[in-house]
């Protein structure tokens, strides 16, 4: 009987392991589907929080959450990054959360603003290219910025972008 239970348990564990990535995703809130990297729904929520911390919504203008910048970040990591960079990113994501947990005994998503600022200041100052959390943070910041500065709202409203600027080029105008 005991032996049988043990075998059954092994079978369950093996089956579970085979479906691990799917299980991970199913574990928590849903997120966007990814082909190459594994980031759970909960982790995706954390990325959304982090992106919003980097470029928040303000009175005047929308922020990262409105733009779903974390989804752009995930798409770029999934489609346009090398396997090595993808690995660094997902490992860095975990290191970042661990970092937060060690420091504040809670996840980044649950951290109050002051603690988030403290954490990000530290990572900004960290120039170690081998520090997974710092590299992850800088990658996230880069794509959050790109998502913001290439967004429809930003380009049309702030940058007055137009697809056809017109025939004129002024080679010398007064700089403000």
């Amino acid at each position, binding site marked *: 009987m005991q032996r049988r239970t043990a075998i059954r348990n092994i079978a369950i564990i093996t089956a579970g392991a085979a479906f691990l990535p799917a299980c991970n995703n199913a574990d928590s809130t849903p997120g966007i589907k990814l082909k190459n990297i594994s980031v759970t729904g909960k982790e995706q929520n954390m990325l959304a929080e982090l992106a919003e911390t980097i470029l928040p919504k303000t009175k005047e203008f929308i922020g990262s959450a409105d733009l779903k910048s974390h989804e752009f970040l995930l798409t770029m990591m999934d489609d*346009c990054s090398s396997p090595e960079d993808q690995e660094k990113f997902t490992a860095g994501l975990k290191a970042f959360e661990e970092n937060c947990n060690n420091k504040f005994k809670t996840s980044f998503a649950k951290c109050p603003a002051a603690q988030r600022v403290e954490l*990000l200041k530290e990572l900004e100052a960290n120039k170690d290219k081998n520090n997974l959390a710092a590299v992850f943070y800088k990658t996230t910041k880069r794509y959050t910025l*790109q998502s*913001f500065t*290439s967004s429809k709202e930003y380009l049309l409203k702030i940058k007055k972008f137009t697809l056809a600027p017109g025939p004129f*080029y002024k*080679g010398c105008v007064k700089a403000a």
Partner: protein
Amino acid sequence: MGDKNRFDVIVIGSGMSGGWAAKEFCEKGLKTLLLERGRDVQHIKDYPTTSMFPWEFKHRGQIPYEIAKDNPSITRCYAFKEDAMHFFVKDTEHPWVQEKPFDWIKGYQVGGKSIMWARQTQRWSDFDFEGPARDGFAVDWPIRYKDLAPWYGYVEKFAGISGNKDGVDTLPDGEFLPAWQLNCVEEYFKKTVAANYKNRHVIYARCAHVTNPQPVHIEQGRGQCQTRNICQRGCPFGGYFNANSTTIPWAIKTGNLTLRTHSVVHSIIYDEQKGKATGVRVIDANTKQAVEYFADVIFVNAGAINTNLILLNSTSERFPNGLGNDSGLLGKYFAFHNYRARITAKYDGMLDSKTEGGRPTSAYVPRFRNVYKQETDFLRGYATTFYANRFPVQNNENLFGEELKNQLMQESPKLNSWFVGSGMMGETIPKETNYVALDKDKKDEWGMPLVRFNVSYDDNDEKMIKDFFEQYTEMFSKAGFTDIKTSDSKQAPGLDIHEMGGVRMGKDPKTSLLNEWNQLHECKNVFVTDGACMTSTSTQNPSLTYMALTARAANHAVELLKKREL
């Protein structure tokens, strides 16, 4: 063989030069078959990304890793981005053999690479045509500037070229539409160079943009350039020259053009009795079936490398080593432009000024080395671009949250001082040891042999880069530019996308393939007027010269046909 496969003229390739051949023949009333190995691309209709906003690109322009990994050569091309990647051929789609590294950049569709080209159009002068004879390399060009000058004017007027009459003897003036301005720092550099050097000129780079549409451009359906600077996607205004908006619809309008796409030319058919070419053998790219077409005249405009491939593959009892190749030089003396070197700096003057709007060109410095006499330890020289611009200060380090956002929200962000730079465009010396050849075993999916590349830089190129760095460091220093940085990309030949030669023009059939009218010496009804015909490379962007050579040769062919001499 049915009549439906018989034409007056066959033009192989519908790009930069083939479009011109088709236009000239159709206008003269000749039934013309234009063969294109790729798909059709109709002006505006087939520019799927032309009106897309930056945020509409899923990867904001970046190429997905899976594509980049499998296609390293095309991925190195500056224009191979998400917005125009559908106009380029991936490495895996048409492989080649690199005995030495060569990045072969290809565009297989109607219009070819004329859709994505960089649109710089500088004339050659006799300092270029007389180069090989004076300096003892390659062979003497069988033509001089006076032979081509009227044809330069002819194609310039039709294509629409923006430029200034500069009166510089190394870069003859042409038929120009108005130029955009040089900016304050470019003008300033022009003055300091003129004050410090004899015969060094900073001018506006002539480019194939319609700045003031003339009746002929309006008749083509083209309008004024709107400085969108996303030309590689195809332009809904027809603001720049490509074959799709200009030469090909013009040819179609005559009713004399038959355009056959998905047609990979296997070889040119040579008739031993008649002693001339009678047609071409085509592999249908979709069905892989062979089909033959016949004509009195054949123009080969497949793009320099594929033109070499077709001729090398056109073997017969008379020409066992490729059509017109008694000299054994077919595929040899293959050359390119040396685009490896770049210099940048900053300028802290004129900080009360900036530019407004964009401009699809820059300033240009024609070759000044070894022009009037040999003066360095290397042959020939280089032209360069010159550009100046101010970019917003972007220091995001240690910033996040509202502070970072506020910086981005500034309507007129603080500007850095002027960023200036020059890129070298060096003439390379054609050599017998630089060649393209057919692989003996490997074939592509259409049954054509793969092209083998044995093309590399030499000592002359290295010395030229060194001189460019020295001269420009001095010129920049004299202008008060600081923080001068030189860089050598070490890029492989091919990435310049100015591949030339292999079927060179010359006076003597023993040392060249083509005569002064671009006819094969030994098979006079076959003409080559794309990059393959080039005897030497000079420093100028070559497309304008291919267009002029093509129009000239096509009109000569019409004359010969009238006299029944072909």
